[in-house]
């Protein structure tokens, strides 16, 4: 390594980058930033504005400024805490299933075997189906306690069929959503896994490391960035799960499967209360940001090289 290359290397990595490359970098990043800024500011400010009005779509012209009433109403809803808890449970549940399952599947699919291409498509396929359709299929074909497949299987071995959607609504929804997102996690983790340096693995195998320690000390750290990204992206989507709930349980029974997004819908949009819906939306954003900051603090360091 010549002196010159060492110089370049330190210059490129981090705050010591040349003015030229930094200016270029800012230029390249600006379209994305500007667009997202515009996208965020315009609807967001309109939403904030509406949240302070008593604006019902079906009674226009009667809007008046009511300060924080909409927020108060949303936060004092008896369902609020249950919705909050359900939201967190849903996110954590699905994350757990998809990350653990996704890692296991990625490891499996990385092995050589016959028909790799087909199995890969089979595993990724659930992500292709529209969420409403998958929810309907699960609800009616599988989980229905009279006509569903699970019921038939239970009856086949002499057990009482279990009423999934009435007695374990949140769990059922977690199951459905996890099935939909498993392919996403698997795909990202698999792509990350395939960039793992085989020589390092072989070397450690020759040094006598067994599968467990190889996994923990070599594979997992390599995949930590991918896992972090999966967690972050999925969390954002999972916080606003909506279609599946609408189609299966409508948030019930009671509030057992209502999450914050569904609460905003049921309480506000369903009665065309734009003011209330906007307040609920703002509250959802604040909560999501809290979750995100929390997450970043926990796993953010994995994003650095």
């Amino acid at each position, binding site marked *: 390594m010549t002196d010159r*290359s060492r110089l*370049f290397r330190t210059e*490129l990595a981090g705050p010591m980058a040349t003015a030229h490359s930094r200016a*270029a*970098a*800012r230029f390249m*990043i600006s*379209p*994305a*930033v500007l*667009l*997202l800024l515009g*996208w965020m500011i*315009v*609807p*967001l400010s*309109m*939403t904030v504005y509406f949240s302070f009005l008593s604006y019902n779509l079906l009674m226009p012209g009667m809007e008046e400024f009511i300060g924080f009433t909409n927020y108060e109403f949303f936060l004092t809803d008896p369902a609020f805490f249950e919705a909050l808890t359900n939201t967190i449970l849903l996110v954590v549940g699905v994350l757990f299933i998809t990350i653990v399952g996704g890692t296991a599947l990625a490891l499996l*699919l990385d*092995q*050589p*075997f016959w*028909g790799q*291409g087909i*199995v*890969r*498509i*089979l595993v990724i*396929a*659930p*992500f*292709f*189906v529209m*969420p*409403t*359709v*998958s929810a*309907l*299929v699960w609800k*009616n*074909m*599988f989980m229905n306690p009279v006509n569903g*497949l699970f019921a*038939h299987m239970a009856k086949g071995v002499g057990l009482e069929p279990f009423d999934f959607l009435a007695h374990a609504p949140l769990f059922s929804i977690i199951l459905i959503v996890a099935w939909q997102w498993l392919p996403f996690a698997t795909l*990202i983790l698999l792509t990350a896994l*395939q*960039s793992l340096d085989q020589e390092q693995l072989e070397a450690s195998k020759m040094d006598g490391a067994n599968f467990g320690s190889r996994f923990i000390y070599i594979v997992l750290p390599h995949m930590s960035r991918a896992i972090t*990204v999966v967690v972050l992206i999925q969390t*954002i989507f999972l916080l*606003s799960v*909506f279609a599946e709930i609408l189609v299966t349980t409508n948030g019930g029974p009671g509030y057992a499967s209502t999450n914050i997004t569904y609460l*905003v819908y049921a309480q506000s*949009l369903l009665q065309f209360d734009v003011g209330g819906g*906007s307040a609920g*939306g703002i509250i*959802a*954003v604040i909560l999501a940001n809290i979750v*995100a*900051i929390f997450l970043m603090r926990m796993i953010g360091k994995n*994003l650095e090289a």
Partner: protein
Amino acid sequence: MARRVSNQRKFVVTLVAWAIGLTIFFPILWTVLTSFKTEAEAIASPPSFLLFDWTLENYTEVNERSDYFLHFMNSVIISLGSTLLGLAIAIPAAWSMAFVPGKRTKDVLMWMLSTKMLPPVGVLIPIYLLFRDFGLLDTRLGLVIVLTLINLPIIVWMLFTYFKEIPGEILEAARMDGATLWNEVVHVLTPMAVPGIASTLLLNVILAWNEAFWTLNLTAAKAAPLTAFIASYSSPEGLFYAKLSAASTLAIAPILILGWFSQKQLVRGLTFGAVK
């Protein structure tokens, strides 16, 4: 990445992989099979797996009733359009964040992700009003714009992740050989990042293809994509399971085919060996 393993081990792995794959795929298989049943068969109990009267009536009915081709073209234009537009904006952005990180890079990344945190149900009316004023309601352009914006954070994030995997030394070597910035991005970076870009493209096309909130609320008859096509078969008062299955199969099939053909891109690993 050829590794020498015993045939015995390969056999066991094959068995396990296929079993798991089929289990995961089963609901979709069920949907496809249901699309060939009559409505009465679709709700029959106990349900029949393969031994029923196969019929094509659902497909003919679906094709007669709605214009599959129009919806299909709309979906293609919207998904591909928003993905390509998103990639064009995101690749430079992700490059700069991965290779010339500043102090605020992580904050910018988090902020981008936070733009996705506003639940669509809460912001429907403002967007609808905006679109109405700009004449974008029921246009493909309007949908492309919306979908690009809502998925841009995801694209940036995924590309950022993949770019981070590429060791800076390769780019540095190119620069030392006198490559300009443009050359560096296009001729050195992009080929190495192809698997990453490919999987980002595929996943984003799927996200846009299945997006069922904005596509339903901002379109009427002209720009409606396949999500509207499918939604017209789901009903709270009337059993359309077989037809819904047929519509869904017609909607998934193009994506499955796309996924099948982009496989090779997803599999290619990064050429680390070259640097060491």
